């Protein structure tokens, strides 16, 4: 085996003694047993034993004499024609959250949405989803949603509130403040509203602003819009601080395109080259081939250096040698054509320079599309600043807010709230009592998007329709309805919308088809083209160079992949418990610092380590005097002078129980650290960080399960792969080859002699399968399920984790139990680092989705005393919950650590009524309303049983049944697991390995044979999940590098 070693946390690197101590100590808390050797000297005396015996006999007697409850079965009074109980219905719709967009298909059972999938008919997202899209179905059943309109804090009727607002609006200078509006019909309604009330102005405000880009594009191309980025067409991708796979603009769309450029096989060795310059460590940085870090204020300088290198061939003179090296290499690659530069900065000048580079390298019209642009963000920071100033000056008579929450997410929420108090008529369409709604006089809650009719136009002429999956559950109303009511339109938005689209599509039949498809798109390839660049790069460069950044620590305010900008996501327990891809932390926000800086803060290896859950708390003070105290999480790969805090935390108690924050929970608000620079909002600022003596527990999940240093991922450079595509198979051959060639394999024959390395082949795998064990080999007739995961395209975004939770009723355990390693995720994404933690630029990061491997020779099955886990004829490692007695032997014996035990009654599935676990933050999940999200085809597990990935067996059974009913064999691709379906980068393939025409068979045996490996193969578990090796388009892989890999130099 290769010497490549990865570390999952800093503790791996140092202090090995503590590490192994913690790893050995599987249970983090004291076990409640007396473990003394002498039976007679035990602390638990005989009398206690008799007491227990007596109690359990009594309990059993009482339970067994209970009456069986009388259950009712209540049919529909009048059955809707298109609903058959037990059969799901699917409706094409569109996920829209401000400017975030994803065409979806809603799965409903008996009229309630239970799952959201991507709509594959969309050419924009091509069926991909994100963690947030997957989790959006839980927001529908959020207990904190407002249930009726309110005026001055009291429930009122729609009629009454309409009357009041209409009176209030009359003749006043009004503002309609919304997030970016993707809906063309809503834009039309707003225009009509403004026509009716000419004093009303429409202001667009986005919490995470792209104002710099919009304004730069207006200046450079005369279009105040965003281009479409064709990552699939790009050979060279340079990203300056843009986390385009995680949070930037439209990650689902970009992941699809990016993944198509990252798919590689030995037969088609072609890989895009991705350069990433960033201040913090994002999943985009993890995917990058070359990565360097800089201070956020330096991004402009890097852009200028890149511009100069591309335009004039000037050698860059940046802060670090790594940056210079990267910029030089990137410039050379960009000049080769099909390049693309994206930048996450919200600075007008920086974006102008980026536009200039894209123009210079001829990206416009090729990878950057200016004909089919994007509407994802429309807010201009200056407009919002002006509005707040006007409000403060008392010039605003009325304000109506939709989809925005400036009292929380504006750079100065307090100022906004104070200004709001000066507005006589304040209306919000907020769906929950958020920070802004609390300050408003009138609240007319909007529908959830799963209850709404609507539409979206993500790109000109690319439309997507939104239809409800459920009748509105509460007394809510679409905000368009309110506007139309106030302008006496005489019809509802639903009626208007239908008329709008019937007219636009031309006929009822076309409309019906569009509604069924969910999308209306022009045929053929997306129109692409360039617009002449008319920007002033020189002035922009001068402006950038004029800005002097003071030395010292800079704070980056960033979005987490799961929680995003905040909003309703802050109160979504699925997302709160989803580990951040890089930090693997849950439930809180924290201060991300580099290992080197952490040492200075006395928070790294000395004292508080990654394994130690109590983190040192630092006090962060912004330039504006805003101060927060947050625990320190050490993130390798960050710039040493940079610290970072995620937004979306520190919410008010009324936002919801999961979101509510105070000194003991829920994190702190980071928005006040942003600042307005006169043109746009900067999402970074200079801060001072001081250590305190306080400690705060943060639940970090990665270190919970250890592989004890066994190699589990394989990574090669593109050059290595080109030179020897079989390198991986040679490594495997060394491990398993001799089993296939044992002398007694064929009697009477001599042991085959071989020269040179043995290369693993499918035949060798078969030999290993047969001879690696003493036990007979099981034949698999009919179907044998298998999965393949491509490590090269996996970005670690977590969509699969949430997709799995939604599909399989996976419990949220809450922070306290997450701390105790009791998390229940069937699928986790392990993250491994390599490199020198003290030098952020050397860090290479790799993700590996880890789920039950469905081993054909499963260690868990052998140790179950009651055979609750056993193997199926289709290769599934089955788990029968009702048979499990909770010995946990299986989990202990699982080398992949993918089994999870129900330590508590998370979901009220126990026979005993009062067993339910409650911790205050996750409890709404057990509300009758929220439980509507549960998948009725999957058992809700009770306390005391083990559970793990089932390969979505309910879907397999459903697919097989459909095939049987139709009397035909199963079609490849007909059955998909939830993780596979949710993946935005198509990293997961699944199917019947026995079917020689199936995708999975082809991947393993021919197309990707060179990259195929199984985790911990040498222990003969015979997993049914294979991985495809990671190929990085770089000069060297740090892991295993004798000079650069700390793991190697210091510990091997």
């Amino acid at each position, binding site marked *: 085996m290769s010497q490549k070693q990865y570390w999952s946390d800093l503790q791996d690197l140092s202090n090995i003694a503590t590490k192994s101590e913690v790893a050995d100590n599987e249970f983090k808390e004291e076990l409640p047993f007396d473990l003394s050797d002498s039976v007679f000297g035990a602390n638990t005396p005989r009398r206690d034993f008799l007491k227990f015996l007596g109690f359990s006999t009594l309990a059993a007697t009482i339970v*067994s*004499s209970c*009456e*069986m409850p*009388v*259950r*009712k*079965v*209540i*049919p*529909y*009074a*009048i*059955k809707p024609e298109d609903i*058959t*109980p*037990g*059969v799901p219905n699917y409706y094409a719709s569109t996920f829209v959250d401000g400017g975030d967009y994803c065409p979806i298909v809603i799965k409903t059972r008996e009229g309630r949405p239970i799952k959201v999938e991507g709509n594959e008919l969309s050419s924009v997202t091509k069926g991909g989803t994100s963690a947030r899209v997957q989790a959006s179905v839980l927001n529908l059943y959020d207990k904190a949603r407002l249930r009726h309109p309110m005026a001055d804090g009291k429930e009122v009727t729609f009629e009454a509130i309409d009357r009041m607002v209409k009176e209030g609006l009359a003749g006043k200078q009004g503002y309609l403040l919304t997030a970016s509006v993707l809906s063309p019909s809503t834009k039309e309604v707003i225009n009509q509203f403004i026509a009716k009330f000419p004093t009303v102005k429409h202001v667009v405000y986005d919490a995470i602003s792209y104002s710099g880009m919009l304004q730069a594009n207006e200046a450079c191309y005369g279009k105040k819009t965003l281009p479409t980025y064709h990552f699939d067409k790009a050979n060279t991708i340079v990203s300056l601080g843009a986390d385009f796979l995680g949070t930037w603009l439209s990650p689902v769309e970009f992941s699809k395109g990016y993944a198509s450029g990252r798919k590689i096989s030995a037969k088609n060795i072609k890989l895009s080259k991705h350069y990433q310059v960033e201040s913090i460590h994002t999943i985009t940085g993890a995917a990058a081939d070359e990565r360097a870090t800089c201070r956020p204020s330096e991004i402009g300088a890097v852009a200028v250096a890149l511009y100069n290198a591309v335009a004039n061939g000037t050698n860059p003179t940046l802060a670090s040698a790594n940056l210079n090296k990267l910029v030089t290499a990137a410039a050379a690659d960009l000049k080769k054509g099909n390049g693309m530069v994206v930048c996450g900065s919200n600075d007008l000048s920086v974006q102008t320079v980026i536009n200039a580079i894209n123009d210079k390298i001829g990206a416009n019209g090729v990878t950057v599309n200016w004909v089919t642009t994007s509407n994802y963000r429309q807010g201009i920071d200056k407009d919002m600043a002006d509005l707040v100033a006007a409000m403060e000056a008392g010039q605003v008579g009325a304000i109506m807010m939709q989809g925005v929450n400036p009292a929380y997410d504006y750079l100065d929420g307090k100022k906004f709230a104070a200004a709001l108090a000066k507005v006589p008529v304040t209306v919000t369409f907020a769906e929950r009592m958020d920070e802004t709604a609390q300050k408003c006089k009138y609240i007319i809650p909007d529908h959830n998007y799963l209850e709404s009719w609507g539409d979206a136009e993500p790109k000109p002429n690319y439309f997507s329709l939104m239809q409800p999956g459920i009748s509105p559950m509460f007394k809510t109303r679409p905000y368009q309805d309110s506007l139309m009511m106030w302008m006496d339109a005489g019809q509802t938005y639903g009626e208007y919308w239908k008329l709008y689209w019937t007219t636009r599509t031309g006929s009822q039949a076309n409309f019906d088809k569009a509604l069924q498809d969910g999308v209306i798109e022009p045929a053929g390839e997306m129109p692409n083209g360039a617009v002449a660049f008319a920007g002033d790069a020189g002035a922009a460069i001068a402006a950038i160079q004029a800005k002097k950044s003071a030395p010292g620590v800079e704070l980056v305010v960033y979005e987490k992949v799961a929680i995003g900008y905040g909003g309703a996501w802050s109160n979504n327990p699925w997302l709160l418990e989803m580990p951040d891809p890089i930090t693997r932390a849950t439930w809180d926000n924290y201060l991300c610092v580099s290992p080197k800086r952490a040492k200075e803060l006395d928070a790294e290896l000395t004292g508080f380590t990654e394994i130690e859950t109590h983190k040192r708390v630092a006090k962060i003070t912004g330039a504006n005097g805003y101060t927060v105290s947050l625990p320190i999480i050490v993130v390798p790969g960050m710039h040493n002078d940079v610290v970072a805090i995620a937004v979306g935390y520190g919410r008010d108690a009324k936002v919801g129980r999961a979101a509510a924050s105070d000194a003991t929970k829920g994190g702190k608000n980071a928005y006040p650290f942003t600042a307005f620079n006169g043109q746009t909002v900067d999402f970074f600022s200079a801060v001072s960080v001081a250590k305190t003596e306080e400690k705060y527990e943060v639940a970090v999940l990665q270190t919970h399960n250890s592989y004890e240093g066994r190699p589990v991922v394989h990574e090669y450079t593109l050059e290595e792969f080109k030179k020897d595509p079989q390198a991986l198979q040679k490594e495997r051959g060394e491990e398993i080859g001799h089993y296939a060639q044992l002398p007694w394999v064929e009697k009477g024959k001599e042991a085959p002699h071989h020269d040179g390395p043995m290369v693993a082949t499918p035949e060798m795998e078969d030999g290993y399968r047969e001879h690696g064990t003493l036990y007979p080999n099981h*034949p698999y*007739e*009919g*179907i044998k399920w298998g999965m393949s995961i491509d490590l090269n395209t996996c970005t670690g975004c977590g969509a699969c984790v949430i997709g799995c939770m939604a599909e399989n009723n996976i419990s949220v355990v809450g922070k306290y139990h997450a701390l105790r390693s009791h998390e229940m995720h069937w699928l986790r994404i392990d993250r491994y680092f390599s490199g020198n933690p003290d030098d952020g630029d050397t860090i290479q990061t790799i993700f590996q989705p880890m789920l039950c491997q469905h081993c054909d020779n499963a260690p868990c099955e052998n140790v179950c005393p009651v055979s609750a886990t*056993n193997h*199926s*004829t*289709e290769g*599934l490692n*089955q*788990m*029968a*919950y*009702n*048979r499990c007695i909770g010995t946990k032997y299986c989990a202990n014996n699982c080398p992949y650590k993918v089994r999870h035990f129900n330590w508590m009654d998370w979901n009220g*599935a126990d026979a005993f009524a009062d067993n339910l676990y409650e911790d205050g933050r996750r409890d709404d999940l057990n509300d009758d309303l929220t439980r509507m999200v549960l998948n009725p*085809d*999957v*058992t*809700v597990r009770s306390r005391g049983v083990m559970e793990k990935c*089932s390969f979505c*067996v*309910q879907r397999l*059974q459903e697919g*097989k*049944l459909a*095939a*049987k*009913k139709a*009397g*035909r*064999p*199963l079609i490849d691709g007909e059955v998909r697991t939830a993780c596979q379906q949710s993946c935005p980068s198509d990293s997961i393939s699944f199917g019947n390995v*026995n*079917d020689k025409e199936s995708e999975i068979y082809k991947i393993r045996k021919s197309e990707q044979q060179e990259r195929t490996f199984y985790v911990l193969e040498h222990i003969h578990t015979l997993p049914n999940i294979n991985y495809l090796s990671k190929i990085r388009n770089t000069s060297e892989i740090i892991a295993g590098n004798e000079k650069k890999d700390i793991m190697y130099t210091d510990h091997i």
Partner: protein
Amino acid sequence: MFYNKKCPESRASTEKHFLQNVYNFCRLCRSFALLLYKGKLIFKYIPVPESIKPMFRICFRSLFAFFVVLLLSNVPAIAAPDGKALFMSNCASCHNPLKESTGPALQNIDKTFPSKEWGYKWIRNSAALIAAGDKTAVDIYNKYNKTAMTAFPSLSDEEIDAILAYVNEYKAPVTATADAGKSGGGQPATDSNGWLYTVITLSLLMLVIILWRANQGLKRAANDKDDVPNEKEIPLYRSKLVIAVTAILIFILSGYWLVNGAVNEGRQQNYQPLQPLYYSHKVHAGINQINCLYCHAGAEKSRQAMIPSSNVCMNCHKQIKEYTGAEEHPLKTAEGKTINGTEQIQLLYKYAGWDPVKKDYNRDAKGNILATPIQWVKIHNLPDHVYFNHAQHVKVGQVQCQQCHGNIEEMDEVYQFSPLSMGWCINCHRQTQVQFTSNNYYSIFTKYHEELKSGKRTGVTEAEVGGMECQKCHY
């Protein structure tokens, strides 16, 4: 007689008590006796001399051949359209051969047709005839409250003729009350034979004991006479052997009762609760022969067979306002209380929101029907961790409803016929052969297909295609 399905105590709840265990044990004894009677155990455990084995084999084979002949003799010689089957699937939900129901009684209806062709037209598409203004058609339409007859465009002339021939020849079945004693004819006979056998066994046993005692007595007398000292006679209750055997027996039996009782915990075989509405499956599915799938339409599509909503009831009951069959089949509850069928139909109207006087639904301002769902008591309860799919069994497996639900068409009030225990499920999966050759899904099992071809096997059971695996039903 052991299947006391009308056990009144079990109606309100399904409380378990000790008697139930005794009863279970008795059942076991009975089945044991039956088994003995049928001779299976004899073959299995008592060695039969090799010489007479062929004789047994011949007996079995001739018996088998006899049944096969019997079976074949019931198969119609030519594949003419099956009038009965066509009637059942197409017509029975609205028509009865002898009585008026939603539509007219069908016996000799063809004699009332103006012409044979008119009949075909009417049956295929009555609406067209009515629209064309055909007088006879309009008259019928008006007579039946302007309820249009469903169109059957796919029926051929031959098929229609077959249906008409069937209804014309149809004779009312012998009434259920008169038939009650005979219907279960086979079963009680077997039972009484079993008892007879038990009585004979017991008397023989007694005889053996008497003979043994007599023998002992004679032996003692002989010993006395010969002055050989007799062993001291120990009374039976003090014999160590007897005490030991009894103790062990009691231990085993009580253990058996305990375990069996615990295993049966939560099972509800014979559960027959009172329903909010007296709905007789016997009247609908039995006497009027309505297809099960007409109401339980989900059985072929979904995991749930589906209890029909009241608007499905109203498809027929808009016309059928009273229960007219009280004479031939009086409705009675299990306790013997007489039920007025017409009152129950009135109760249905209340649930369905139907006003029988104005012959329309009661509606709210928006035009929605003011119906209330009927809160039936659920009879067949599976634990939450069991996934059962009706479509899998009914559509794919071609299992008859009665196999699990019993002779539902004979039940006025439904009770749970099968134990619905896992052992019961598994047993069926072990024995039942899947539609292996007729369903192309199974074409992927190449090995079995080869074995079938080569005659190595005659069929493939559910268990052989994975039907015994945990995750077929538990996930």
